[in-house]
């Protein structure tokens, strides 16, 4: 059997590429890249906005620590609080009855 001579073969392919395939593919790829670029830019803007917002929030917190607007008890003047006896004096007879019953049940 005669050995086949590969070098003498044509480099042609037995397949065909559809007409305009390369042009269509180029347009499709460029359009996809355009979309990816747009998405990437949107993400960059969002990240920049988020970073700016975070920095602004931290700055507000640092520059105005609670602003004295929160009702934090003034423990130095705790003596001004009502004494237990005063609380008992304001309680109704029914409330005192309930208190007495609970004290007996749980102990003082």
């Amino acid at each position, binding site marked *: *059997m*005669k*050995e*086949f001579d*590969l070098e003498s*073969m*044509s*480099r*042609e*392919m*037995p*397949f*065909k*590429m*559809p007409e305009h*395939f*390369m042009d269509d*593919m*180029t347009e*499709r*790829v*460029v359009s*996809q*890249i*355009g979309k*990816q*670029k747009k998405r990437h830019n949107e993400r960059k803007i969002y990240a920049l906005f988020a970073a700016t917002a975070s920095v602004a929030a931290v700055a507000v917190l640092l520059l105005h620590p609670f602003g004295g607007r929160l009702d934090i008890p003034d423990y130095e003047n705790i003596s001004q609080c009502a004494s237990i006896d005063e609380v008992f004096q304001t309680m109704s007879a029914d409330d005192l009855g309930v208190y007495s019953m609970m004290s007996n049940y749980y102990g003082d």
Partner: protein
Amino acid sequence: MKSEESLSVSDDSIARLLCDDNHVEEAVRLIMKKYGEPLYWHIRRMVVAHDDAEDALQETMINVYKYRSTYSNEFPLSSWLYKIATNESLKILKNKAGFTLSVDDLGDSLKDSVREEASPDADETLILLQEAIALLPAKQKMVFNLRYYDDKSYEEIHQIVGDSVNTLKTNYHYAVQKIKDYITEHQL
């Protein structure tokens, strides 16, 4: 831009445009004009079916855009492009093979596809040659195609495939022997 002009644009210029966000689309158009067809045929010879070649070529170009920052001009642009195209072709074949088979087990189904995909007026010897190539293990197929059809040197094939030059030469030698045997056996 006319295709003749595109073909004369140097790879260095294309690479520079590719790394410039404002000119990346232009770079992709130039790559498609200069290397689109060779890349398509390189992929097609690996995956055989046109639809698969289309998917692989599109993914190749998207990856060129995505990973353009990883391109180093130590290597020729064409080798980088062929490397991405080869990986995409292998990815298509791996998907076809699924979990149970390896890419090298696809030989018979790829061989059958050659006849289905061949043009009605195609030369029988050309079909036999493609059948023989389809039956080769993936590595031998890559090396044979790059050397025989794309006229790549072993050094360039090394940049694309990654194996040592001696291993590539051995792969090519085995591929040629198997192809010759197949055609000699099947030729009328």
